[in-house]
């Protein structure tokens, strides 16, 4: 990473803004307004466009959510890709008025669709109600016109909104001379037939007004005409159905078209947000503008050349390395992970834990290797590994799962690793392979496997400490390098204990002088602070507390012991896999006489083990990775590099 300070003329600011945001890989540095004033510079004020851009983004998101309810829009989203040629073309960026126009246009069409659909549904509901009315009254063979002007009672038929019906019920139930019947529910309305005494007419009318009763009246035609009316209404209803379908299709088209435009709108918004972000962190004199930021070291010259070109040489630069910027200005450079494509998916494992700081090594390659090894060792099976790898490949290939591509790549890796270990163990779908195990089968060599687990743990912990030594050296933190439990002192202590335990056990040449190793390691840890003060120029001068030091040593010893033993689970899960598959086949044998049942039991059992045990092994591997391995050396105190603009992958 390099820090780039840029000075340009005010008249060139617009073109430079566009170029820098278009370049993408530039993280702007905040300018302190007070400090700038100290240098007679004026920091640009906050822009009102930020709020407006936020508003545009929210409007676009709302429309996207609304359109995603359609299949057409979801299909369109699947086909849109970030690598689409149009996206990387700067002419595809919309200016602010165009963004407003695009959003306004879509919103108008969306609101129009809703209004038309609402009207259509209201008409449909009305027709449905009229049809139900005819059906209801024609059940009773009588001339309903006779009931219109009865002296003591009046009857009515209509609809009340579903939301208001409980209110009507509560009020009507309190009036003894009212009887009513809920005829049915049509959409958002309850169909109601009621009869009431004329003495409560006024009260009833008031209640009906308050519950938004719509009167459909008692039939006014003869019985014979009801049939004709029904046919006409049914015909009208089918017309309205067609209209509804047509509106839905129109909306699908709008949604599909809208998704494309909204994608462009949102990218444009993010582009403008980048511009505003950069503009706000510029300081100016009368004629010149200054801004600073981080750029990946390999691209610093490209950016300088780009700015020089567009300003026709009217620009000055000061380039500082990350180390210089840290030493002279105390600026912590951001971290941009830069791994080969094959390792890039495993960055997810690292960034879930934290971002490496600039001055430490990127643990991605080690995480990738160790995670795959641990997973493969715990889940060694050619068949199961093949299924997992196949699943990973499916996630990589199908566009629908594009968002899970990293996960797919990890699955492919661990699947292949499981297959390799399956060959070593001689296991395929829980059964022994036709060929001999190249190494050894866990179930048949239990104790050796458990011992392998401990040895693997010792290797991992030692490796972790070595990585910590490297990180400490990069940081020039020599105190940590020499005297910390994860430094040279720790490795001497740990190796010393291992040597004194393992060598006699394995009946290898051994000398009691080897006890000097752990003792000296313990001594260095116990007196870490004073030794650091004594030998390291920039080390701690504090004396340190004896009790605290003792407990740190105790914690270090306990940590080494428990962390080492923790890796036994690698062997334990390898054994576990064999045993679980044994149980699957045992259960399947119970239905051996039924070929279908047997097949289902075997297939189902295998799938269950792949899913259930596969998940648990993944979690356990992650736990070993994070807790026993990363904590030895990974500071994770970095900040992620956040470039401006939408063309982050341009170069």
């Amino acid at each position, binding site marked *: 990473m390099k820090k780039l300070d840029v000075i340009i003329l005010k008249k060139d600011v617009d073109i430079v803004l566009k170029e820098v945001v278009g370049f993408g890989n530039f993280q702007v540095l905040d300018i302190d307004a007070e400090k700038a004033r100290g240098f007679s510079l004026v920091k640009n004020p906050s822009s009102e466009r930020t709020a407006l851009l936020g*508003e545009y983004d*929210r*409007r676009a*998101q*709302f429309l996207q*959510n609304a359109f995603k309810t359609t299949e057409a829009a979801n299909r369109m989203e699947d086909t849109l890709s970030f690598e689409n040629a149009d996206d990387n073309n700067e002419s595809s960026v919309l200016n602010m008025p165009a963004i407003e126009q695009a959003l306004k246009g879509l*919103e108008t069409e969306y*609101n129009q*669709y*809703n*209004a038309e*659909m*609402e009207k259509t549904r*209201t008409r449909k509901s009305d027709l449905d109600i009229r049809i139900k009315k005819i059906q209801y009254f024609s059940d009773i063979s009588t001339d309903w016109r006779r009931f219109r002007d009865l002296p003591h009672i009046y009857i009515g038929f209509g609809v009340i*909104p579903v*939301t*208001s019906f*409980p*209110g*009507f*019920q*509560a*009020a009507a139930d*309190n*009036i003894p001379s009212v009887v009513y019947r809920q005829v049915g529910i049509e959409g*958002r309305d309850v169909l109601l037939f009621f009869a009431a005494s004329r003495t409560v007419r006024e*009260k009833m009318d*008031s*209640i009906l007004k*308050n*519950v*938004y009763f719509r009167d459909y009246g008692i039939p006014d035609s003869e019985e014979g005409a009801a049939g004709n009316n029904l046919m006409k209404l049914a015909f009208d209803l089918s017309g309205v159905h067609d209209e509804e379908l047509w509106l839905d299709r129109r909306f699908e088209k709008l949604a599909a078209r809208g998704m494309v435009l909204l994608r462009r709108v949102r990218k444009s918004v993010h582009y403008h947000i980048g511009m505003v972000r950069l503009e706000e962190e510029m300081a100016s004199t009368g004629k010149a503008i200054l801004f600073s930021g981080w750029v990946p070291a390999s691209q610093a010259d490209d950016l300088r050349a780009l700015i020089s070109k567009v300003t026709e040489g009217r620009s000055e630069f000061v380039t500082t390395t990350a180390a210089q910027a840290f030493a002279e200005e105390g600026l912590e450079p951001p971290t941009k992970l830069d791994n080969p494509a094959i390792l890039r998916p495993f960055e997810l494992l690292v960034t879930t834990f934290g971002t490496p700081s600039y001055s430490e090594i990127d643990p991605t390659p080690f995480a990738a290797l160790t995670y795959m090894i641990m997973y493969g060792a715990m889940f060694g099976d050619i068949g199961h590994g093949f299924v997992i790898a196949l699943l990973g490949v499916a996630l990589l290939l199908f566009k629908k799962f594009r968002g899970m591509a990293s996960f797919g790549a990890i699955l492919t890796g661990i699947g292949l690793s499981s297959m390799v270990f399956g060959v070593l163990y001689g296991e395929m779908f829980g059964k022994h392979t036709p060929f001999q195990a190249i190494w050894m089968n866990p179930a048949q060599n239990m104790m050796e496997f458990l011992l392998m687990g401990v040895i693997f743990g010792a290797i991992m912990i030692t490796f972790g400490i070595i990585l910590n030594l490297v990180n400490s050296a990069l940081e020039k933190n020599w105190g940590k390098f020499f005297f910390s439990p994860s430094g040279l002192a720790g490795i001497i202590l740990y190796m010393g204990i291992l040597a004194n335990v393992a060598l006699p056990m394995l009946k290898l040449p051994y000398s009691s002088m080897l006890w000097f190793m752990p003792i000296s390691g313990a001594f260095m840890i116990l007196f870490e602070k004073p030794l650091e003060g004594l030998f390291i120029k920039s080390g701690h001068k504090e004396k340190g507390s004896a009790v605290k030091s003792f407990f740190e040593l105790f914690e270090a010893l306990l940590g080494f012991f428990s962390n080492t033993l923790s890796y036994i689970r690698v062997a334990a899960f390898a054994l576990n896999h064999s045993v679980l598959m044994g149980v699957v086949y045992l259960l399947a044998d119970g239905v051996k006489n039924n070929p279908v049942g047997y097949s289902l039991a075997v297939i189902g059992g295998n799938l269950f083990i792949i899913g259930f045990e596969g998940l648990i092994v993944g979690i356990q591997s992650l736990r070993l990775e994070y807790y026993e391995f990363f904590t030895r050396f990974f500071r994770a105190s970095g900040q992620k590099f956040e470039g401006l603009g939408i063309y982050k992958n341009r170069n």
Partner: protein
Amino acid sequence: MLGTEYTAVYAKVKKWSSGLVKADEWAEILRLSADEAVREAAGRNIKTAQAADNIEAVEALLKEESYLYTLSAMRYLSPAMHRFIDAWSRFYEIENIKTITRCLLNQKPISGLYNISVKSRFRRESVKDIHSLDEFQDFLSGTDYYRLAADTFPRIKEEQKTFFFEINLDNFFARSLKNQFDRLAGHDRSDARQTIMLYMDIQRIVWIYRARFHYEMSPSDTIAVLPNLTGLLNRKIYDALIASDSTETFIGILDKAGYLDSIRDNGFEQRLYRKLFTRMKRIRSGLPFRAGILLEFLIRHELNVKNWIMVLELKKRGMDTARIKSRLYPS
């Protein structure tokens, strides 16, 4: 399981509660000038603390904080309780609809809305170009509120009041909340009953009071418009309140039923909320691993926001401290 679903809740609520104004602090705040009170209100927000120097901006911040706390709370809840609070969060959307309708009726620019999720249509930027009730009704197309609007807007235009529309909205809200409440069980259910559903009961009681004695609606009309939707307000008390023929009778029924605080120096609404506050204190001082801790906080925060808005508005209008203090909700 074993009451451990909400172990993270207590510490979170303790931290959030530090932003609420306590009773004795209101006395200090009431002594400030109108401008000072505005700055104090802006600075006390935890989630949205930023400088603001006018009432509109501060009210927007306070309202936004309310909504943000509801969203934050949802992260700590069991699935059933999550759905319940998701239904509760519609409260803010409905408040926005009420505010929009009032602004349109009074022909004022639309302002004072909660800043809610992008999934809702009723956000500031979506409604800024609406200038009439007809346009708003069209805007409501495709939402659950269209039918409510279609039924009540003619009445709003005729009577020039939003009362019936707002009641309709509250009824709609109460129904959807009750649906989710019915799916709760055990402690979740009892906690929701003693906090949010009790708050809803109080809102309903206040509506009944206004319907009977401000709008002078008959008992049958009041029942029609304000049914006991949640079914949690005792049937006898509900019937007695509806049938009461004077404010004294009304308040007497509530007093006897234990809905009112014993201190009689304030209006009955303040007494209702004080009693609510006292009941909710039991939850706050009870087991710390209950959803009730969060729910109780949401209600307290809501009352806190109401108080702030009331204090700022009344100070701006020059009302004296004692009168403002008498109107404050409990804290």
